[in-house]
């Protein structure tokens, strides 16, 4: 599915050059749920940009879904993002003053999907992300933080991408809502077989993934399977019991 080999990324040149990634190699298979963890300054944002085809590496190769994307031009990268990757960001996921449905339809607009097909697919994605149907016409400022992330997940899903890339999707949420969002991602991974890469700095969040890659100073310091990932849906239920 994705394969990174000796990825390096250097910003600037000469004596002021700063190398953010110093030879990263790993691969992710279809249907995996991988968490990339590390403190700030570890290079995890830079890695996210490269995995998300927002940026290209200085050296090394990156093959996504059978295509080498490491030397692509800006417009080619835009095509790849459109077809292969669904993003969920920490904040500013939705366009302001725009309905939930239109936000989810937007990737389909750029992908030139037929207008009558768009709404059907957006509705399906929103339902899969667990947003109630009566919220579809709401504007983004009428939604709670958790609902916004669900809409963002639906938008990430709608193009049927090879990879869902979630960059600190719970960073702005309280613990309970975080679990709800993680639960949504886990369901997509388990029942729909979606490949998910989750970037986070919180160990609690990373423990919900099936595999955890730890970064430090631009290098991978560990890459381990997590044989017993935490189940966010069950935790949410416990949470309810505890608070009630």
């Amino acid at each position: 599915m994705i394969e990174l080999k000796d990825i390096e990324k250097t910003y600037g040149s000469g004596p002021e050059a700063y190398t953010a990634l110093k030879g990263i190699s790993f691969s992710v298979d279809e249907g995996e749920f991988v968490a990339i963890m590390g403190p700030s300054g570890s290079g995890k944002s830079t890695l996210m940009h490269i995995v998300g085809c927002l940026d290209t590496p200085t050296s090394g190769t990156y093959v996504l879904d059978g295509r080498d994307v490491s030397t692509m031009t800006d417009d080619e990268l835009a095509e790849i993002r459109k077809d292969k990757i669904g993003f969920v960001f920490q904040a500013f996921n939705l366009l302001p003053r725009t309905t939930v449905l239109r936000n989810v339809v937007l990737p389909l607009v750029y992908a030139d999907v037929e207008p009558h097909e768009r709404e059907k697919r957006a509705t399906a994605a929103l339902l899969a992300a667990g947003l109630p149907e009566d919220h579809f016409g709401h504007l983004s400022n009428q939604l709670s933080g958790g609902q916004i992330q669900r809409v963002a997940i639906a938008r990430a899903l709608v193009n049927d991408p090879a990879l869902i890339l979630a960059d600190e999707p719970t960073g702005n949420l309280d613990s309970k809502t975080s679990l709800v969002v993680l639960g949504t991602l886990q369901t997509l991974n388990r029942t729909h077989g979606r490949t998910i890469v989750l970037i986070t700095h919180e160990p609690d969040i990373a423990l919900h993934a099936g595999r955890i890659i730890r970064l430090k100073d631009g290098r991978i310091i560990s890459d381990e399977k997590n044989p017993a990932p935490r189940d966010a849906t069950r935790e949410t239920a416990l949470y309810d019991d505890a608070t009630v």
Partner: protein
Amino acid sequence: MTTRDLFEETHAALSANKTRSGLTILGIVIGIASVIALTAIGQGAQNSISASIDSLGSNLLEVMPGAVRMIGFGASSGRGSAKSLTPGDETAIMGVANVAAVSGEYSSRYQVTVAGANTNTTVDGVNGSYAGIRNISMDQGAFITDSQSLSLSKVAVIGSTVATDLFGTDATSTNLVGKNIRVNNMQFTVIGLMATKGGSGFGSQDNEIFIPLGTALQYFAGTGNQFLSTIDIQAATQQSMSQVQSDVTALLLSRHGVSDPAKADFSILNQQDLVSAASSVTGTFTTLLAAVAGISLLVGGIGIMNMMLTNVTERMREIGLRKAIGATKADINRQFLAEAVALTFIGGAAGVALGWSAAYAVTAMGIVAAQVTLSSVVLAFGVSAAIGIAFGWYPARRAANLNPIDALRYE
């Protein structure tokens, strides 16, 4: 991305900040409206001046006597005072090629009286062809004829102002033909009333009395003093005017025995010179108005650019997000350009409407008959679309070239 999507995105973006969009559009509205209204006013002024000049007569040349030639350093009595044009000159001019009509003129001011009223006005002795040369039409009766001139008839055609002065304010609606008037104590019978011409800016013919040329020369000039005040010549076509002018000049020089054209004892006024002088004045005037309007259009365009640049900065994260979900440079470029063009297009349409109304209002108020030309509307629309593209291009390009990572991180 279909055209409809582009429209939807543009509509959403522009209605997101209605005040700002509205004010930006207002800049364009004012620019376009002033271009349309001011060129319409300029065009209207040009038309009214041309019409005034045309009402003097068409393809008209006027021969006037020169100054009285002096011996030594005597005081000059000024051009037009010399007695150099004779009825013989008039007859000779009829033989020049491309001359359609000629009328000699003997004019002077006299006291004109009727019972109970009197006025002092210009009395013009003319031939029958004068009416055709000077575009005179009649309200009552008929104009002077050549036979009346030959028979020295004491008949008169009066202008509407003279009629009002002599016969009262509602004189033009009563029958004046057959009434008697006294000109310089000689009795004349009114045979016609001229249609009102209005002021032409070059003297009004409404305040004149016309009598047969022969009569004027006989009774007012006196025998032995048979000189004409002017000779009016109508050329056959506009193109032949300069040929007629030079031929008449040559003819009169030889008839008057003047060998040096610089010492000619007459001068010829060409109506075409008047027309081109007037249209060059109004043309300059229109250009000046259009230039002022053009400046306001330019300011409006800069307003659009300013708004679009602010937009790009404000919507940095939106641009980043759109790029992350697959918008290409071309998509972003098109979206921002569409917004700028939509602003100018709406502004252009409203501006045309406003400019048109302004021109209509100016006409309705009777200031000048402003004329909106199709070309100015097309030009204004074209210019507004061009301004949208020109001033929207740079902000759109800036948006399109944003790095998605920087755009997403922008705070």
